[in-house]
């Protein structure tokens, strides 16, 4: 199976602290992957590198069929290439309606002049409607997103990610602060998404990871400690020592 994203031998150092240490990782084009690890294991830094926020000191990040080198692209170009990212804290545009948030994220030409003369077509309108249905916010389309509950904001952000139609979704702690019902809904959205694209979920909560039923990568001190099914990695002695045993 050819991989969609291939990270190899990446290292990054912040003021002498090695946040990522010779990390290698790959994921296929329609695959769900959970990344777990203790605090400071480099989970967020890993996402920063893939999305172009942080430049690694060494290593390669290769993307897609045409083997694009992501390290040479800007954040905006990486997003346009098909990598969407959801942040830990829900970051939606609170001052704007759910509809506007989704419309802004919709996969379209992003150049300033095109956007300036943009008129919403019936087609785009329908796309926004169907996205809203997918994330359960149909009734909230006209509300300002700042008024939504925490869980709804998380879904809206996932909806904005889906609107971008990315080939790879990077999701940072989607279930944080959610009620059990909301968690179940979130799991459904993510599993549905993973049927057609790659999804990487960073999560602390083991119960949530178990429900995703996917391959798990354990990070520790900036490199991969173990990889495999959840049952497999939880039996691994190293993993128990550094993470689960505590």
């Amino acid at each position, binding site marked *: 199976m050819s991989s969609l994203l291939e990270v190899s031998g990446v290292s990054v150092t912040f003021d002498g602290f090695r946040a990522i240490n010779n990390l290698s990782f790959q994921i296929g084009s329609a695959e769900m992957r959970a990344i777990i690890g203790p605090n400071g294991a480099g989970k967020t830094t890993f996402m920063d590198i893939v999305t172009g926020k942080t430049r690694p000191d060494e290593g390669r990040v290769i993307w897609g069929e045409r083997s694009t080198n992501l390290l040479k692209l800007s954040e*905006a170009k990486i997003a346009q290439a098909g990598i969407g990212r959801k942040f830990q804290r829900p970051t939606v545009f609170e*001052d704007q309606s759910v*509809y506007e948030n989704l419309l*802004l994220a919709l996969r379209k030409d992003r150049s*300033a002049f095109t956007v300036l003369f*943009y*008129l919403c077509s019936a087609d785009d309108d329908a796309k926004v409607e169907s996205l809203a249905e997918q994330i359960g916010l149909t009734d909230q389309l006209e509300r300002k997103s*700042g008024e939504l509950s925490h869980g709804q904001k998380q879904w809206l952000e996932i909806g904005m990610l889906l609107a971008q139609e990315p080939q790879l979704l990077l999701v940072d702690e989607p279930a944080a602060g959610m009620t059990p019902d909301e968690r179940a809904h979130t799991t459904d959205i993510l599993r549905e998404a993973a049927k057609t694209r790659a999804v990487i979920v960073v999560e602390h909560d083991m119960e949530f990871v178990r429900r995703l039923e996917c391959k798990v990568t354990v990070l520790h001190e900036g490199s991969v400690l173990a990889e495999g099914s959840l049952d497999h990695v939880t039996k691994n002695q190293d993993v128990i020592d550094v993470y689960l045993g505590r």
Partner: protein
Amino acid sequence: MADTAPHTGARSGRKRQSFIAQNPSVLVFLLILALFTLGVTFLSEATGNAYLSTSFVKTLGKTLCLCLIALAMDLVWGYCGILSLGHFAFFGLGGYLIGMWLMYERTKGIVVTSLAQGELPATPQEITDAIGTQIFGVVGGSEIPIIWYFADSLFAQLALVVLVPGLLAFVFGWLAFRSRVSGVYLSILTQAMTLALSLYLFQNDSGLRGNNGLSGLQNIPGLDAVPQASISIWFFWASAVALGVGYVLSAWVVSGKFGSAIKGIRDDEARVRFLGYNVEGYKLFIFTLSALVAAIAGALYYPQAGIVNPAEIAPIASIYLAVWVAIGGRGRLYGAVIGAAGVSLLSSWFTGGGAPDINLGFYVVQWTDWWTVLLGVGFVAVTLFAPKGIGGMLDYVMVKAPRDRHGADFGPDQGSKREQEE
């Protein structure tokens, strides 16, 4: 999901809604502006009623121009979160560029008339020399500098009114935004830009008459026979039209998807970047656009003021501009207009000797001195008690109670006071 939203609110960015339906305030604004213009016209000396003096009509016309630059400031600061403290540089440049034509043509008219009384017809070289001496004698020169090359052509000079400030804004913005300079640092850079420009223009050899500036701009070449009363009302109309067009243009830019994108940049720049938008390009576009609007406002302002000099583009002018917009209310176009009109008219009332002095027995409060203190106190009061400005207070009176964006910054800059998330 216990609560369901009311379905009455207008959905922004929807195709089936016309621009006016999305922005009802545009229609209201244009109506008020039209009524105001009609009213001033009928009360002015130009129509023979003379309830308003010509100089007051000029003050009102100038105020409309200040409202226009406040709109530009609101575009760049209120909507895109770029606190530019240098927009009066563009305003002043616009004034200088139109002033060059006004001064050159008028001097040429005078020179040609006086040389025509000589025995021999004047050669073009003699005319040029005489114009040079007339204009630049005050700074001890007689050569016409190369930057006055187009001063003889109204069309070219009008083109320069938009081209020069536009280019300056584009180059400055490109350098600043590309290096991801933002927040306070960008504000300081814009202050430096306007200070540098003003210091340069203060020099006698800058080619723009040093600290004398350009004067006599109220005399429009070719209209010598027309009384100032008529000219003042024409400029008032032109300013009103420019403000109206500027308002519609601004409302169009900030509605729809583009507006959505720049408001997103204001609230969370990184998020917009990760959505795949080229944030720098958007900032550059809005910065340059607002500079163009500011330049046009300046080109209309200074013929009414009669004089433009380097003190006009000193850093303090641009800071006042930010104060007007903050007092009027950011992120709502009419707020900028209310702030600029209210504060600048009050300012000319207080500093022009209109306000009576207050005798405290032991000390006489003279408003010419104390107006800045009053303005400062007013600004602090607005920041503390009405962070959304006068426009924000209007919301409570006129529209349904607005919902706050919880957890968001009160201001567009990092480090500004942040509301607690519930």
